[in-house]
């Protein structure tokens, strides 16, 4: 079946703008995760959803970052007032249940000019 998909694959924006990054998890997966991978580093955890609710958002760097998953499937990561330091690859993963293997999407490369 289809894997995790993320759109767009690339996003270039200007400092101060608002962006939305979308994640479509594997059908039937109840858990969804967002990670951020800065250049030359490993991915870092941002937020985890179990169903529709954010069960752990401890990795979000500040209140400019917000994520939703209103119907328990697709998730959107929203970044307000983007800064150059937000430039990174944003990865989404899903798992059948919490604690199961996480399947990753190809990521969205965000560049803030």
């Amino acid at each position, binding site marked *: 079946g289809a894997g995790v998909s993320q759109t767009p694959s690339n996003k270039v924006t200007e400092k101060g703008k608002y962006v939305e990054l979308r994640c479509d998890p594997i059908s039937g997966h109840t*858990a969804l995760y967002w990670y951020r991978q800065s250049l*030359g580093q*490993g*991915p870092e955890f941002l937020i985890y959803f179990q169903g529709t609710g954010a069960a752990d958002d401890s990795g979000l760097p500040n209140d400019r970052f917000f994520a939703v998953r209103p119907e328990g499937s697709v998730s959107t990561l929203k970044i307000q007032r983007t800064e150059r330091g937000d430039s990174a690859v944003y990865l989404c993963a899903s798992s059948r249940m919490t604690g199961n293997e996480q399947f*990753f999407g190809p990521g969205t490369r965000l560049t803030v000019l």
Partner: protein
Amino acid sequence: AQSVTQLDSHVSVSEGTPVLLRCNYSSSYSPSLFWYVQHPNKGLQLLLKYTSAATLVKGINGFEAEFKKSETSFHLTKPSAHMSDAAEYFCVVSAHNDYKLSFGAGTTVTVRA
């Protein structure tokens, strides 16, 4: 808290020779340990995982890793490298059955013909 240190940022091997990627971990709890591979423009793929069963773990594509508690290590090996093994490899730790993955900085593997 959990963390991993990948001891080599870059490893270069000749095709047909062994590959060794080194990883040391730190964990307050009995850890789960993973190796993921990331090919360019593709999602992270799970190679193998250790979850307190056998200390020698076999994964996909001929890779295996050995959990050594006394050395807090989880090194990844493959007896004979193939050109298709050229990629970025991440050592990952989580508390047992936890959802929050902590990634190392990654090791880039190049394979010479």
